[in-house]
């Protein structure tokens, strides 16, 4: 099962290497890892998607805790949260297919950010399912290049998903 961990760490050189090294050393599988500065410039927040059952996850989190630079770990898999990923896709186009591709993008609220003679670059933010769906729809046209950021996540302030948040999710 996939778990999403948000990990608060000290913003210091080498922290990412420590975390990444820990995962490879202990044989834990990372699906994705993102890292960036937080509201406090001394701290960074990592979002790590990790695959494993409960005992594995417990070890991951305990071993992470042992790293001196790691301050806090939260498994947000079960918490109401917003999880997002950004994807850039360069898809082959021709005179005939361009309109169809743009239409698909519109349905997904994906943005066309670059247009060339024989390719389009599309940008979209969303969760796993949405991104996968778009990628699959575009695949038949020919994917020239694809890059995903990995997930970032944040726990919602409200305990229950409010309507606004749900709408937000649709628009996201």
């Amino acid at each position, binding site marked *: 099962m996939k778990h999403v961990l948000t990990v608060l*760490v*000290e913003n210091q*050189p*080498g922290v990412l*290497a*420590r975390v990444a*090294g820990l995962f490879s*050393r202990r044989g834990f599988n990372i699906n994705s890892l993102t890292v960036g500065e937080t509201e406090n410039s001394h701290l960074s927040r990592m979002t790590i998607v990790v695959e494993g059952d409960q*005992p594995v996850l*417990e*070890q991951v989190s*305990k*071993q992470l*805790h*042992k*790293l*001196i*630079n*790691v*301050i*806090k770990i939260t498994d947000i898999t079960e918490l109401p949260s917003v999880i997002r990923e950004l994807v850039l896709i360069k898809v082959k186009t021709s005179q005939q297919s361009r309109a169809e591709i743009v239409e698909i993008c519109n349905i997904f609220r994906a943005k066309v950010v670059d247009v060339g003679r024989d390719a389009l670059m599309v940008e979209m933010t969303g969760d796993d399912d949405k991104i996968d769906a778009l990628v699959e729809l575009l695949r038949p046209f020919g994917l020239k290049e694809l890059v995903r950021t990995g997930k970032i996540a944040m726990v919602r302030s409200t305990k229950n998903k409010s309507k606004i948040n749900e709408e937000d999710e649709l628009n996201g």
Partner: protein
Amino acid sequence: MVLECLKKENVTTVFGYPGGQVIPLYDALYNCEGLEHILVRHEQGAAHAADGYARATGKVGVCIATSGPGATNLVTGIANAYMDSVPMVIVTGQVPTSGLGKDSFQEVDITNITFAISKHNYLVKDLKELPRIFKEAFHLAASGRPGPVLIDIPKDVQVAKGEFVYPEEVKIRGYKPTYQGHLAQIRKVAKIINQAKRPVICAGGGVILSGAHEELLKLANTVSIPVTTTLMGLGSFPEEHQLSLGMLGMHGTCSANYAINEADLILALGTRFSDRSTGSVSSFAPKADIVHIDIDPAEIGKNVFSFYPLVGDVKEVLKALLQLVESKENSAWTSQIASWKTHYPLSYDRESAEIKPQYVIEQIHQLTNGEGIIATEVGQHQMWAALHYTHSKPRHFISSGGLGTMGYGLPAAIGAQLGMRDKLVFNIAGDGSIQMNIQELIVAVEHKLPIKIVILNNGHLGMVRQWQELFFNKRYSSTVLSCCPDFVKLAEAYGAAGIRIDKKENVVKALEESIKITDRPTILEFIISPEENVFPMVPPGGCIDQMMTGGTKK
């Protein structure tokens, strides 16, 4: 400024080896009062000596090396300390900050290399950070689950001048070890201890690290719980005690391993359930509930599932438990234990005319009254020393447990002797291991350390030979040391005393003679049978009650 930091931490002895990027540091060490620098002959020796010093004294061991090869030579020693949770601070020189990342002469990224084998490490890029980093490093090394901490200091930072203010306190947001156990959980554990019919305590190195041996003895006595120890836990419980089962695991005693597999409760104290202790995990202690008490939460549930986890310092937790457990006799279980001990004692061919290594170890115990500090290398001799010496005091058995580092014993014995001048220090070695760091012998000579180096010479890399005999059809691939130095001449060449013993009747005499030599180390080379094996032995991956006991039952 580095030395000022060390003095603030009450460091009196450091082990090291100079080199290009630590010349400024060594310049400060020149004529430095109150800080004795022990010049080793190889950086690995410095790390092991600091490690042995730390284990014998309980203080933080400190070693120094230069950048590049100096630093990489420390790596085995750091890994060794990490595996066995030894508090150490390692100071390495580094190329000047302007040369970092440029593959400068003798540059190596030692912080990166040691990520996986240190509790934490630092690269000091600014002199202003130096005092805080030293304060943190010593705190990290010694507190919680101890471990080695490395500080890499570029040369320009070493020579920089600045105001020296040593911080009073440590503030690390992400580091708060739990010492007091959770009270509700302690009550629950006390209850099941009181209810258990066949409890066994499994004491690991954590008992020694937290200084909990007295509490352990009290608990065992109060509730009549037999105690087995891991290799790292040897000395945490007196082995002459009737409740002592000796060591468990791959080369554990039969009574310890039988007791584990019959127990209905295992009280695991400061142990990480290494594969050498548990054998096959799935068949380990099949009838028992496991209470796992450890200061490192990550150890709980890592190798063995525990229904009753208890995070805390063993000493603190035991103190709390002692208030809650009920005194009892439990004679059914203790008499079962006693009967195992009578029926399956450690055995070897006592009548043999040859020198048996077990006999040598027993005689060392006799002659020292168990008061000696026993360091070991790694191999058969290590297991004989673990099994046949009656360990009764904490910090008196100094051995590479987790990493299994050949070449550890001699430098560790030097460190131990320098930390404990009044103690009689032995290094039990094999003819293979001793050659891995033999260069450190000169350090013992230089400092007039009367260490007894007992070489049990069987002309083989004995432990691997034993495995080849038992599991590889006696194909002795590269384990026959047919060409061996003359250890007596070698001792003399170094200025140490050397005695070769090839007759059983001379064993005691030679040992007595060596004890009289107090101004230099002595090498005692005992010629033992090449075929002698370590028994009992559980085949790797087997269940620990399936022991091979060898053919020489007595």
